[in-house]
C-alpha cells in the first residue's frame, strides 16, 4: 500500500486554481521531492494532505486514511513543518519544543533521539525567545517541533529555505537517516541541488505537475545540446550572448553561463562571435544538463 495517494485532487481559491487535478503516490519509506516555484501549489497540496484544507475535488489518503474523513486519526500520524510562522515567537526554543511534544502527549526526552542531531546545535540557545533566532535557526527548531511526536509520514514545506549551505547538507543527511528508519517524507524545496537527494521528484508549476521521475530521469528530459561558457567579463558576456543570433537561452550558473543555441551552431561559431567582440579567456565546453537546466526548460515550455 502506498504511504501517500493523491488522486485527481483540485483546489481553487476564488478564481485561482491553486491545484489542478494532481495525482501522485509516494511509497512507504520514500523520500519524495516537490519542486516548483512559489505559487506552484505545493503549500496548498501540503495543507490538504495534513487535513488543514479540504480538496474541492478528488481524494487523498495518507497511510491508508482519508484526509477528509479520517482527519482526526491522521493528525497524530503525520508531522508537518509549514513554510512560515510555525513557531511561537514569545516562547523560548525549549518551550516551543515542549509545547509541540505536549500537544501530542509525549515529551522531549521520549523522542530526543530523533531530533538530537539538529537540536544539539540549538541547545546553547534553548532559553532564547524563538523570535530572536536567526532565520536558519528558526527553520531548525521548526523541524524539531515537527518530528518530536515521532510521526509516520513527514511533510516538510521548504524546510531549507534560508538555511546556510553547510546546514543544508547536514539537514539532508539527517533526512537520509530518517529514511533509514522507514519514515516516509514529502519535501518541497526551491533548491535544485536538493532535488538530487530525493528518490523521486515531481516538478510543479501553476497547480499542475509537469513531470514525475527520478532525478536522473528529469535530467534526461533535457534533450538539446548545452554549453558552459566563461570569459573574463561576465556581465558583458551575458549581454553579448543574449544578443547573439544563435542564442536560444542564456543563464548564469555560478562562474559559467549555460547556453542553448539554434540547431547547427557549433562551438567554433560561438567562439568566433565572442572573439569578434573582443572577449578574453573564453572557454566553451559541451556539458550534460543538470536538474536546474531541465527544470528551467520545463518551466518555460511546459
Amino acid at each position, binding site marked *: 500500500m502506498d504511504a501517500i495517494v493523491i488522486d485527481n485532487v483540485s483546489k481553487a481559491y476564488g478564481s485561482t486554481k491553486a491545484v489542478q487535478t494532481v495525482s501522485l503516490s509516494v511509497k512507504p519509506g520514500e523520500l519524495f521531492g516537490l519542486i516548483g516555484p512559489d505559487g506552484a501549489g505545493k503549500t496548498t497540496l501540503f495543507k490538504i494532505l495534513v487535513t488543514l484544507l479540504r480538496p474541492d475535488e478528488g481524494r487523498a489518503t495518507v497511510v491508508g486514511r482519508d484526509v477528509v474523513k479520517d482527519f482526526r486519526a491522521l493528525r497524530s500520524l503525520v508531522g508537518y513543518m509549514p513554510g512560515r510562522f510555525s513557531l511561537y515567537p514569545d516562547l523560548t526554543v525549549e518551550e516551543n519544543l515542549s509545547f509541540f511534544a505536549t500537544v501530542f502527549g509525549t515529551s522531549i526526552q521520549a523522542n530526543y533521539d530523533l531530533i538530537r542531531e539538529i537540536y544539539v546545535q540549538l541547545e546553547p540557545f534553548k532559553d532564547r525567545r524563538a523570535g530572536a533566532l536567526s*532565520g*536558519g535557526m528558526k527553520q531548525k527548531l521548526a523541524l524539531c517541533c515537527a518530528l518530536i511526536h515521532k510521526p509516520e509520514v513527514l511533510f516538510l514545506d521548504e524546510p531549507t529555505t*534560508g538555511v546556510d*549551505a553547510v546546514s543544508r*547538507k547536514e539537514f539532508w543527511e539527517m533526512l537520509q537517516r530518517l529514511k533509514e528508519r522507514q519514515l516516509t517524507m514529502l519535501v518541497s524545496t*526551491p533548491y535544485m541541488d536538493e532535488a538530487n537527494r530525493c528518490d523521486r521528484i515531481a516538478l510543479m508549476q501553476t497547480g499542475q505537475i509537469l513531470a514525475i521521475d527520478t532525478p536522473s530521469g528529469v535530467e534526461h528530459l533535457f534533450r538539446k545540446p548545452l554549453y558552459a561558457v566563461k570569459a573574463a567579463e561576465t556581465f558583458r558576456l551575458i549581454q553579448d550572448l543574449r544578443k547573439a543570433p544563435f542564442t536560444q537561452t542564456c543563464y548564469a550558473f555560478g562562474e559559467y553561463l549555460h547556453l542553448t543555441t539554434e540547431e547547427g551552431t557549433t562551438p567554433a561559431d560561438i567562439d568566433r562571435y565572442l572573439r569578434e567582440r573582443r572577449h578574453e579567456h573564453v572557454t566553451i565546453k559541451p556539458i550534460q544538463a543538470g536538474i536546474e537546466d531541465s527544470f528551467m526548460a520545463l518551466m*518555460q515550455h511546459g
Partner: protein
Amino acid sequence: MDKAVITNKLTKKFGDFVATNEITFDVAQGEIFGFLGANGAGKTTAIRMLCGLLKPTSGDARIAGFDVYRQTEQIKQVIGYMSQKFSLYEDLTVRENIRFYGGIYGLNRADLKAKSDQIIEQLNLGSVADKLVASLPLGWKQRLAFSVALVHNPRIVFLDEPTGGVDPITRRQFWDMIYEAADRGTTIFVTTHYMDEAEYCNRVSIMVDGRIKALDTPSGLKRSFGTDSMDGVFQILARGTSTK
C-alpha cells in the same frame, strides 16, 4: 575614490552574547559585495547597524561618509534596504507600494507617477499593478521590493537574502537587475545562501560566529582554499565551528 562602507571593529552584543564581533572591512562605491555566512553568523545584525537601524555596542562605521551613531537620518537618504522578511506592504497594491515608498523619500507627485510607470513597465507588472502585493508570487514581490528600494536612487543598497526561496528563472532575473544597478554605479551589499550567487559578486566576505573569516574575490578565495567552487570555500570555513 570614496568608499561606500567603512567599518572598524564594529560590534553588537545582546546581553553577553556577541552577535557581531569586531568586524573591519570596506566596500568601494559601485562594487557588488557579497556578505556571506552561516545561519546566526551575524549578517542581519551587521546590516541593521550599517543601515542605522540598530545602535552598535562599539566600533565605528561610516556609510557614504555618514556616521552610524550620529547621522542615521542622512544614512537613510543615501541607502536602500530590502529586509530578510518582507519589505513591501502586503495589503497595498503594487502601485500603492511604489507611491508609499517614493513618498517617504520626498519624491513629488510628477516623479512618483513617472517612477511608478517606469517600474511597472520594467518589471512587466502592468496586468497586476492594481492588485494587492499579497497575491503576487514571491519572485515578483522580491523584484518589486528591489525596485522600490532603489526608488530614491540611493548610492548603496542593502539586500538581505533577496533570493531566498525564489525560483531559478526569477532568481537570475533578480541578478540581472543587480548587475544593471551596479552598472549605473549603485553599490550592492548582498547576502545569500546560494553559493552560485557568490560567484556573481566582485568580492565576498564570509562570516563565522560573528567574525569575518575571509574576504576576497571569488577566484581569490577559491585559490587560497584550494577548491574549485564557492560552496567548497564555504564548507571549509563553516565546518568545525558550531553551526547554528
